[in-house]
């Protein structure tokens, strides 16, 4: 781009430079975002590694039995085997090499590779978080639109209160109350776990109980799985519903005041058309941003909710590892969840660029 004469550069807006042989702006935008994500992923490994090394505890003591600890030869051998006799930066390189091969260390609790543990628990959490984000998007956007259209009237005030309560309620407490009321007292919902044990389970294809049950044509398992999913997903979603309602409301209000919306109204277009084609379309960008952030809080929430509902996911694994201070497992969770979050943010950024062409040109 440096060969572009300054005069030409000055007359053209940023990004619209001559030379069509260059990659499409969207492609360039994608490449830049992906490179940035890779850089961040590397940063995440650095953070978890530094944190692991902050720990006062000695990994040798945690991993070797009492008798082995008494023998200096065995200890020295173990340290050499795990690269602990090397300087810290070499240890980090070894750690990174292990990560690239999918080695997240061994859980002190389950005595299994952390990667194996996580592979088992990730689908359950994805199912729960996926259901929650779906509920939040539908309800949050609908509530936000209603609040904006009925601004300063009863529905707006009621929804404002609901969304404020939603972002103020301690998730772990709400989970407990919901479990107590709906399962223990009213017996409206099935209890803990993902599906009634008596029904068995559908052959695992995707790892998502609901999808697997549908694929196998097992309606009984499907309804049981949905029943188990409802309460934890709603508890988890309340915070994100609150968040999305607030942002959708202000995004829609912002657009409603624009001239082109007034023009559409003056033309006599039906309200439905104005809402979906004019208003929601431009309000979509801020909504998607918040939805990406909301996913992060959902992943955080799973740690607090899964423990209560005995949902066999990453959250419960993280909870158990945290309470027993099983460091490799906690770091594994941090790493995997960090990377998942990174990927989601990447997707959000890309959607951003697809929806709003201005973003690509920045």
């Amino acid at each position: 781009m440096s060969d572009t004469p300054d005069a030409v550069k000055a007359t053209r807006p940023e990004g619209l430079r001559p030379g069509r042989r260059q990659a499409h702006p969207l492609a360039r935008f994608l490449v830049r975002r992906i490179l940035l994500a890779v850089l961040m992923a590397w940063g995440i490994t650095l953070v978890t590694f530094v944190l692991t090394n902050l720990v006062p505890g000695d990994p040798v003591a945690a991993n070797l039995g009492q008798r082995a600890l008494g023998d200096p030869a065995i200890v020295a051998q173990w340290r050499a085997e795990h690269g602990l006799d090397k300087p810290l930066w070499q240890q980090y390189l070894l750690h990174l090499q292990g990560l690239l091969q999918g080695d997240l260390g061994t859980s002190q609790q389950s005595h299994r590779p952390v990667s194996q543990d996580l592979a088992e628990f990730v689908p359950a959490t994805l199912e729960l978080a996926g259901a929650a984000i779906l509920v939040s998007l539908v309800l949050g956007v609908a509530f936000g639109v209603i609040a904006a259209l009925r601004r300063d009237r009863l529905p707006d005030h009621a929804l404002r209160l609901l969304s404020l309560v939603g972002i103020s309620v301690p998730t772990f407490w709400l989970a407990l109350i919901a479990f107590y009321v709906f399962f223990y007292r009213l017996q409206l919902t099935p209890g803990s776990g993902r599906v009634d044990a008596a029904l068995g389970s559908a052959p695992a294809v995707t790892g998502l109980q609901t999808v697997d049950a549908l694929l196998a044509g097992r309606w009984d398992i499907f309804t049981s799985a949905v029943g188990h999913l409802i309460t934890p997903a709603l508890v988890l979603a309340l915070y994100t519903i609150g968040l999305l309602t607030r942002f959708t409301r202000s995004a829609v209000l912002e657009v409603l005041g624009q001239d082109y919306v007034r023009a559409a109204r003056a033309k006599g277009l039906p309200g439905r058309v104005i809402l979906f084609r004019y208003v929601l379309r431009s309000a979509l960008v801020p909504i998607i941003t918040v939805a990406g952030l909301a996913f992060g809080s959902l992943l955080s929430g799973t740690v607090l909710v899964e423990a209560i509902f005995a949902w066999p996911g990453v959250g419960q694994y993280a909870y158990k590892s945290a309470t027993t201070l099983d460091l490799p497992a906690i770091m594994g969770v941090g790493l995997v969840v960090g990377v998942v979050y990174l990927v989601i943010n990447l997707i959000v950024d890309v959607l951003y660029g697809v929806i709003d062409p201005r973003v690509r040109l920045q």
Partner: protein
Amino acid sequence: MRRPLSSRLPEAWRQPLAVAGGVLAVAWLVIALAAPVLAPHDPLAQDLPRLAAPGPGHWFGTDQLGRDILSRVMYGARVSIPLTLLLVALSVLIGGLLGACAGYFGRWVDETIMRVADLVFAFPTVILAMVVAAALGASLANAVLAVLVVAWPAYARVTRGLVLGVREREFVLSGRLLGFSVWRSLRVDVLPNVTGPVLVLATLDIGTALLLLSGLSFLGLGAKPPSPEWGAMVASGVEVFDSWWVATFPGLAILTVVLAFNFLGDTLRDALDPRTARAIKERAL
């Protein structure tokens, strides 16, 4: 320049949510200050019947060790509220200072600080706080430190943006030309233009910080028993969830404190946002 805060607050303060937030916040501050006088029992004494349902003598019931839950909830305000306020004040201070430096000096200072902030943003908060708390060892002080680690970048980002906005303005430049030191320039010319939005963020953040702190204690990474910390009290209620009152009341305490500060923060934002302030004024007339 913005008009002084006092002339814009009154209309906003008449909103019902603002009143509710103010009343709740004051009530909790009074409880925190006067807990030794108000609490009917010693929060640590295990001298009452175990798991007694709420009733006369112990309005919130007792827990599995025979401690009065009402007294524990009251004393809990002395643990959670000061720590949360301290936490937010520290995040404002650290994040604000780093953000101001990033915005004011630019270049590599900006790059370094903001990339570190980005890194923190790359993790979902509870997960990172949990990882940090676990690495430092389970204690309330370390939990505060862990929340601090995840909380400062938001202030750094906001402050940086605001400082970038005023850095090149004439009044800042003329101050510099008059020979103001960097410190004086930041303090006298830049700071007053940054406080409003940061204050809103801080008020709204008190709730988030309390949720995070009590969440860590709930996970066993914060307060240690027998400390009457609300999150830890909810956790102990999980073991006996048949006795609903053990977990319900400390949870309600968290909810009401967070609600109070979210109401206040929301009001403050409306009051400081000229567009909303005008809307409120029009309605009030």
